[in-house]
Structures are given as C-alpha cells and as structure tokens.
C-alpha cells in the first residue's frame, strides 16, 4: 500500500526523518549515521561539495538507493524497505528526464495513468499542473521542442501531478544557464509554498540553497555539519567547514579573551563554537571588511575586481595577512594596486578557530 491518501488530505505535507542512515559503497562511507528531520511542509536544502553524500541521502529517500543501515520515516511510517514505485514521491532530476515519446501533457499525466485515474481527470490535472508552472499552452509539444528551463518546469509539474508525499529536487537547476536558474529557483519556491509539499532540495550552489530553503543543511563527508535557517547559517556557522562553504572567507589571525576577539585592532564578538581564549584564526566575511585610502594605512591594495554593483578588493597588511574586502563599487572607485589603505573590520560576530 502507498501513503497517497495521507498526503491528499493535508495541505502541509508529511514529516520526513532520517534515523542514523549509513550508506557504504565498498569501504567508502557515502553517508555516516545521517540524522535529519524535516518538518511537514518545510523546504530543506542539502548543500555540500560533490561527494558529500547529499545526493545519496535524496536517493535513499526516493527509494532509488538503499541504506546500508538506519531507518527512513515519512509521516511516521517506516519506508526503508518500500520500493521506489510504491513511495508516492515526486522527483525532479538534474538530467532532463521527460519521456521523449510522450507529449508534455502525457508526461505530466504519466503518474496519474499508473494510478488508474480517468482520462478526463488526467487531462484536467495535467492542464492544472502546467498552468501552475506557467506552461499552460505547451501541453501538445514534445520534450525536444522545449528549452532546458521549460523541460525542468514540466518535470516539476509531472512530479507534483501525483500529489506526492515528498517532493525531491536533485540539482534541478544545474544544467540551466544563470538567468533561467535564478528565475526558476524563485518559481520553485513559490510553487512549493503554494502546494505545501514537504521538499528536499539538493544543490552544490550555496546561493541557491540560501535563496529557496526554510532551512539549509550543510553536509560534509556523509554527515550533516549544521542545519539552520539561511540567515543563521550565514551569520553563525557552526564549524570552519560551514563558514568556508557558505560564503567566501578571510582567515585573519586573532586573539580571543572572554568572548571577544581582537582582529586587526578591532574588538569583535566571537560566536558560539569559537575558542574561548588564546590566539587563533578568525573567519571574517568579505562584506565585513572595508578599506579606505589612507597614506598612513597599514595595508596596500593588491588587486581590484569590478563585479558591477560590488567590487572585491584584495589587500595585504603590513603584518602579512591577505584579505578580501567586498564593497559597493562606488567606494572602490579610484583604488589601484600599490595604494596604501586603511582596513577596518565591522563589529559583526565572527567564528574564531584554533589556528
């Protein structure tokens, strides 16, 4: 039996729980006792470098891969041994996965046909789903007549048409070009909020994860390093790995005493997880660093990179620290390599780790 009945009756989706899931490939541990709880209706993004286990976790939830040990619960029900085709989940793949021999509408209706719904009901549902993803007029076309972005929209409509218990998005935007990626990313979030399906979104792009998710889980070597709302993850990384993965970081020598770090002469609060005293390395965000031209400054400009609204300025201090500052481009105008500058650190909390 499937769990479809439960999902259609609620708008808020089902809770998902990975209980100490491990997955071994030979001697390699793709997942190492993964613990992850997703609230009903929540969109959780799993973020991490390739090989961190994020896709394996998603595939285990989909039933396309099998956990070596551990339990997966959906809506409180153990589905660890349920085959993929009995799980009632909707999945969007990184590779284009529309069935080439079917029209767009037939693709969307595919899961409904398997569930035995009438052809009128299927057609109505397919149209409704295509409207939802903004392709109401494209039902009679074939996949090879659509752009990459349109194909992924149809894949999303197809996954949602069956009213899945959980929506699984496996790097759905990776094959698209930058502009379409941002547009579709926002649209996925809008649609997910509209239908309220519990969603697991796997990506290696930190901007994407931070933009769409209720909570972002950063994975490393088969484990969840930290899971938190985007802002918290960004402001209070729990480990150097998270700090480095979520945003570019400057590593600057610092001294900590009683919760306050001294970095480049400035006093900055040290966040939880930092060393409590002694000298270490502070992880300072580029946007917390500012530079201003000054003949008496203790640093000099190495290079200036113009990125449109912002600029990135690389400087080296006389003490030998290399720093990157991210400024509005208007403040970087006139800076040139060799210029002497003054470096100041904004008093936003930083993570200080043992150097």
């Amino acid at each position, binding site marked *: 039996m*499937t769990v479809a009945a439960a999902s259609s009756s609620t708008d808020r989706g089902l809770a998902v729980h990975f209980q100490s899931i491990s997955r071994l490939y030979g001697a390699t541990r793709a997942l190492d006792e993964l613990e992850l709880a997703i609230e009903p209706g929540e969109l959780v993004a799993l973020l991490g470098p390739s090989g961190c286990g994020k896709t394996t976790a998603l595939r285990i939830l*989909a*039933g*396309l891969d099998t956990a070596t040990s551990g339990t997966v619960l959906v809506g409180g029900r153990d589905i660890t041994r349920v*085959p*993929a*085709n*009995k*799980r*009632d*989940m*909707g*999945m969007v*793949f990184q*590779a*284009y*996965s*529309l*069935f*080439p*021999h079917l029209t767009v509408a037939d693709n969307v209706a*595919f*899961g409904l046909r*398997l*569930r035995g719904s009438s052809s009128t009901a299927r057609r109505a549902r397919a149209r409704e789903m295509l409207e939802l993803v903004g392709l109401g007029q494209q039902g009679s076309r*074939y*996949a*090879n*007549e*659509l752009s990459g972005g349109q194909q992924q929209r149809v*894949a999303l409509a*197809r*996954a949602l048409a*069956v009213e899945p218990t959980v929506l*699984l998005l496996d790097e759905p935007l990776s094959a698209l070009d930058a502009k379409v990626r941002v547009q579709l990313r926002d649209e996925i979030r809008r649609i997910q909020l509209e239908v309220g399906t519990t969603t697991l979104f796997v990506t290696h792009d930190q901007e994407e994860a931070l933009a769409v998710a209720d909570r972002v889980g950063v994975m490393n070597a088969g484990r969840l390093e930290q899971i938190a709302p985007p802002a918290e993850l960004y402001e209070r990384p729990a480990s150097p790995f998270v700090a480095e993965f979520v945003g570019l970081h400057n590593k600057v020598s610092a001294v900590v005493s009683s919760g306050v770090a001294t970095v480049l002469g400035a006093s900055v609060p040290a966040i939880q997880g930092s060393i409590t005293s002694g000298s270490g390395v502070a992880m300072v965000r580029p946007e917390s660093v500012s530079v201003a031209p000054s003949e008496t400054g203790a640093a000099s400009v190495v290079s200036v990179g113009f990125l449109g609204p912002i600029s990135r300025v690389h400087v080296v201090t006389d003490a030998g620290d290399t720093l990157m500052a991210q400024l509005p481009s208007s403040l970087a105008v006139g800076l040139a390599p060799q210029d002497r500058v003054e470096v100041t650190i904004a008093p936003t909390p930083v993570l200080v780790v043992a150097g």
Partner: protein
Amino acid sequence: MSGAARLGRGAALALFALYFALPLLSMLDFSTRAKGDAVGRTGQAWANLFQDEDLRAAIITSLLLALFTAVAMVVLLVPTMIWVRLRVPKASRLIEFLCLLPLTIPALVIVVGIANVYSWVTYLLGDSGLTLTFAYVVLVLPYAYRSIDTALSAVDVGTLAEAARSLGAGWVRVIVSVILPNIAQGVLGAAFVSVALVLGEYVFASLLHFDTLPVEIALLGKSDAKTAVAASLASLIFASVLLIGLSFLHRHRRSPS
C-alpha cells in the same frame, strides 16, 4: 560544390548503380527468357515460384524462419539488454562479448559444432526446418545487438527509468511503456536485419539438411536455372525492400534534442 566535383560524384554514383543494377537486370533478363533458342519472353520461371511444390514449401519455411528468428531475438535480447543496462551494468562487457562471438567464428565451424546438438533437437522436436530458429537466433545476435545497443545509448535509460519508477511504475511498466517506445527504431532495425540475414542464410541450412529457400535455389540451379534465378532475384528484392524501408525509418525518426 564545383561543376567538376559534381560531375565526378555523378559519374561515381552512376558507376556504382551500374555495378549493382547490371547483375540484377541480367537476372531478370535470364529468368524471363524463352526456352531453348526460341525468341521472346516467358513468365514460366516466375510462375514456378508459386507452382513448384518444393520451392513453395521452402519459401514458406524461410519466411516463417525469418519471422520466428526476429521474434525470438527481440524477446530474448531486448529485455536482457535493458536489464543489463539498468541493473547490472558490470555485465555489459560480458554480454557484448557473447553477442559478438558468433561474428568471429566462421559459420562452417559453428555448424560442425552445432550438428551434434541438432541431432538432439530433431530427435526431440521433429525434423521441421523451423528448428533452425535456434541456430539463427545465435547467428543474428551480433547484428541485432549492435542495433539495439546504439538505440539504448541514444537515450538516458537510467534517468528515464528512475523518473518512471518515482512516478509509480514497476519494472515491467518501465521497460514496456518507457524504454521500449524510445528504442523502437533500434529494435525494428534489429528485426529487419535478422529477417534479411535469415532469408539469405545457406551454410547452416544446407549442412544441417533443411530445405530453406537458399538451399532450394541452389538445388534448382542444377536442374532449372531460370526458376532458381527468379527465386534469387525475388528474395534479393524482398531483402532490399526491407533494408530500404529500414533506412527510411532511420531518416524519419525525430531528431533528439
């Protein structure tokens, strides 16, 4: 393209056309020539194709063999190849090796080996020429394998299967409703090539003493050359129509995105 190049290409094409057409036209001429030194045309040799009991039986045997071989090949090979690709990709090398093996062993050698087996086959299943199906399925494996393998490589079988499974399709459904329609051209191609091969196969049938069309043609050639030539030409035309139909199908399939 310059005029000279176009002319050269045209000349080459004409030469090839002549090379292929001349024997066929000669066959047509010879098979319709009147008996002895008499002048004029006769359709007697062609009529014999339908009137000669043995020849008709041989034609039916060969056509049935072609049909059974193509069906057995599809039933055996297609699910196996899809399954190997989806579930046991490690075995794909082995399957490829096994399927291409018949190509590397001369037909004569296979027949000598297979003759012993066939004394059992005829003992168990009777001496109908249709038992040749077993040998022919092996014979067509290399060609059928290539055709199906190419079709399978052209689609992302793994992702399509996973998408279908996540939507609720069981394995049978995945193979029948999702993968098969997308490799249909390749399967059809494999079937056509099998038919063409079976219709022209002589060595197996002759040495195992089965009366198929090529065997009967060879036999007739010794007594009634005109009918033999008419039969050869008919089977050549049939095979050509199949192969031309095949290339037509290939040209008209939807281009992948």
